[in-house]
Each structure stands twice: as C-alpha cells, then as structure tokens.
C-alpha cells in the first residue's frame, strides 16, 4: 500500500501569503506538493464555512494564512479574521471537528521560507493524523449512499 498522501487546502490572502508562496517558488525552495492554494483578496474574506466545505470535499487538512497584524492591505481584515478564527476554532472544538487539522498562520510576502515550513509541518502532522475519515464519511459517503 502506498503511503497516505494528505490533501491540504490552503486559503491564503492575495497580498501576503500568496506572494510569500510565490517567493517560495522563485527562491527554489522545495515544499510538499500536497497543498492546494486558494487565493482570496484578504483573510477577512475567508468565510469559516469554506473550511468545513473543504473538509466535506475531501480535504484532510487546512491552512489559513494571511498578512501579519498591522500589515493588512486593507488595514484591518486580518484582525477581524483573527477573532473569527478564535470563535470558529472554539465551536469546531466543541462540536468535535478536529482542529488539529486546521492551521492558522501569518506569512508575509517576504517569508518564502516560512511558507514552506508551514506547509511541510502541516503535511507531516496530517500524515500522522491520517485521512479525515469521520468527516468525509458524514459529508460524502453517507449522502451518496
């Protein structure tokens, strides 16, 4: 049997993390290919339900990443996002959704190396956790049955 390759979805902001991820590439830093990047205007735009949608569509892990505090292109989008993540993380915890599979990070446009680290470490962590079977079963197999 081949090794489990996690599916990781990264929701990133256009101005910092996406540019950061670009830098990772142009700097020729190699990082895990398990990540699929979805670009957003701002972390403030990332609806928390998108995260559950990602799990429902087969993701095993999620990265949400944007500009460092005070660096937001729109001044405060990441501040609103930060609060929302706290509350969302709380409700996920309470409802038994595995928050170890959701990684939040700040990665600036200059932090190509950090992006690679985040992706790699998340990948390792998710590999340890295995596929997110309980959620996939609920959201996919049960429905199609």
């Amino acid at each position, binding site marked *: 049997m081949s090794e489990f390759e996690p599916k990781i979805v990264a929701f990133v902001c256009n101005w910092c993390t996406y540019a950061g991820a670009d830098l990772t590439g142009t700097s020729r830093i190699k990082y895990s290919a398990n990540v699929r990047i979805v670009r957003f205007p701002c972390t403030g735009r990332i609806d928390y339900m998108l995260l559950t949608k990602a799990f429902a569509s087969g993701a095993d892990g999620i990265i949400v990443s944007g500009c460092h505090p005070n660096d937001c292109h729109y001044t405060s989008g990441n501040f609103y996002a930060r609060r929302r993540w706290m509350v969302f993380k709380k409700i996920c915890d309470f409802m038994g959704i595995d928050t170890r599979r959701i990684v939040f990070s700040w990665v600036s446009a200059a932090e190509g190396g950090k992006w690679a680290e985040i992706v790699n470490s998340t990948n390792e962590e998710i590999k340890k956790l295995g596929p997110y079977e309980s959620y996939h079963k609920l959201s*996919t197999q049960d*429905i*199609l049955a």
Partner: protein
Amino acid sequence: MEIINKLIDKSSLSALIERLNTSGKQVYAPVTKNGLCDFAKVESVQEIDFDSIATIQSAKSLVFPKVEKLLSYEKTYDDVIVKEVDLTKIPEVIAFAGRPCDAAGFIPLNAIFTSDSVDQIFKTRLDKLSIISISCKKADDFCFCTSVNGSPSNTSGSDILLTEISETTYYAEIITEKGKAILDAYADLFKDSAVVDKTPFVAKIDKQFSTEIINEKLKTLFESDIWDHQAMRCVGCGACAFVCPACGCFDIQDETKGKDGVRHRCWDSCGFKIFTMHTSGHNPREKQAQRWRQRIFHKFSYQPEQQQEFGCVGCGRCSRACPSDMNIAEHLKAIAVK
C-alpha cells in the same frame, strides 16, 4: 375485505415483534428516547412506548422520508450516467403501535402521490408497508380526530387494528389483505373472537366541528380577515407541516461530491416564504397570512376537490409542535362559526 375479528394476548406481542423481525421485516414503533417519542426501528417489544398519546412526528417518514434519493448520477468527461433508484431494495416495513390517526394519514398522502401520475418510489414504499395500529385509550387537548371523520378506534388506513380490552388482551381487527397475510403467517398467536364494541375501551373525544362545515364555510372565506387574525402570531417555520401525517409537499435538490451526485427529495412547507417565490423575486404568497390560508384551504378545500380526501386526520401534532401555539382545531372551530 370483510373484517376478521381476533384476539391477541399482550404476552404474544413480544413473539409477534420478534418473528416479524426474523422474517426480515423491519418493525418501526413509537420509542421514547431523551424525552421524545418517535417512530424508530425496534427489535423487541420492550423498546416500544405504548403509553404516548402520539409521537412527535407522524409515521409518514416510513413512506415519505425527510430526505430520500430520487436518482444518482456520475459525471464523466463528456457524459452523465444516470442511475435510477432500485425499487426492489425498498424493505418490507411494519408500522407497529401507531395510532389510528397515523394510519389514516397514509390515505391523503397516498392520494397526493398516486393520483393522476404514480410516484413509484412512494407507492413501492406504501405497498411494502403493513400497518398495525393500536386504538387510543387516552387523548389530550390537541386531539380532534372525531371532528375530521376519524376516531380513536378508526380502522381506515390500518391493516390490523388492536384495541386493548383487558389488562392482558387486545382485540384485533384484521382489516386488509396485508393484515390477513400477517394473521396467516402468525395464526398461532391469534385467537378467534366475536365482534367487540370498542367504545368502552377507547378515549372519548368530543366532536368540535365537521369537515363538511369547514369545506362549506371556506367557499366564502378566501378574502376574509380571519387569516390575518389567525396568522398574526405564526412565526413562519415548517414544524406544523413536517410533523403532519398528511402534508406531502417536497423540494428536489441536487448534491454533488466530486463526479458523483444524488438528486434528493426533501420535505418542504407551504409556510416558508421561499416555497412559492419566483426567481424574479415575485411571490404569489407574500404574507404569512396567505401561507396559513393556503395550508387550511389545501387541506379542507382544494384536496377534497382534487382527490376526494381531506388533508387532516386530527392528530393535533401541528398544534403540539407549534412554537407559538397555533392550535389548528381552535382555528378550524373559529372558521366553522364564522
């Protein structure tokens, strides 16, 4: 078919349930869990709650589940493979220990799904359903079956009706061929009986109005202000329709996961604003009062005219479930004297 009169000991019910189960039939009966009494799959008689006046939800989900697959599909590069539901996989089900109103509810529901064109999924489910009901010993303030042509010991809709006539015995009326098939299969559990007058053994429920009067009154009440008045406190949820044994409205929804998907049917309610809303935003029933009126008219005027069945069996579930205490019997009484 002429009704066959039998007796069955309470102590035999346990064997009946077990043997129905071992014969491969699924037995559903009222079960109380976390303070809620609803139909659930049972394997032994101990699980069954014989005391509840009525389950929260009706037995309709046995033939018309809250969500049900109509078809599934698989998308390929340039084609779609449509897979129809396999009707042969629909199981044989026994609805056990429901009330006569539960059984009666299948009649208007059947009228909706099989008149003009036959909904094969519904029909197969109903064909494979046998209904063993138990007459009501108790009733509460919300029961009004006698006002809508039913009664606590009404046989219509049931295949077998049991009536508790002593501490140990049920009087069993075998009403239909399906009922007779059960009798024949488990004949050893039944004893012969003469016709028993059920009246002393069942609840007394006063008749508050008649369906004929309601039907007659509605002819002139469409524009009445009574609808505004009655619907004032309606919050516009769908609880009444979803717990109703006779409400059959539904929605059709697709859900796709990757290349596979299903087309679902799920319950819907005329009480929701978006039920009739056009894409353009135009809504033929804009106000909650109009939607409440539709509910009453459909049950007591339209459906009798279209399908010769009244869409209400008087179980009172809608009134019990309503968060703002819209009591349908009370409202109907008001219509009857309007």
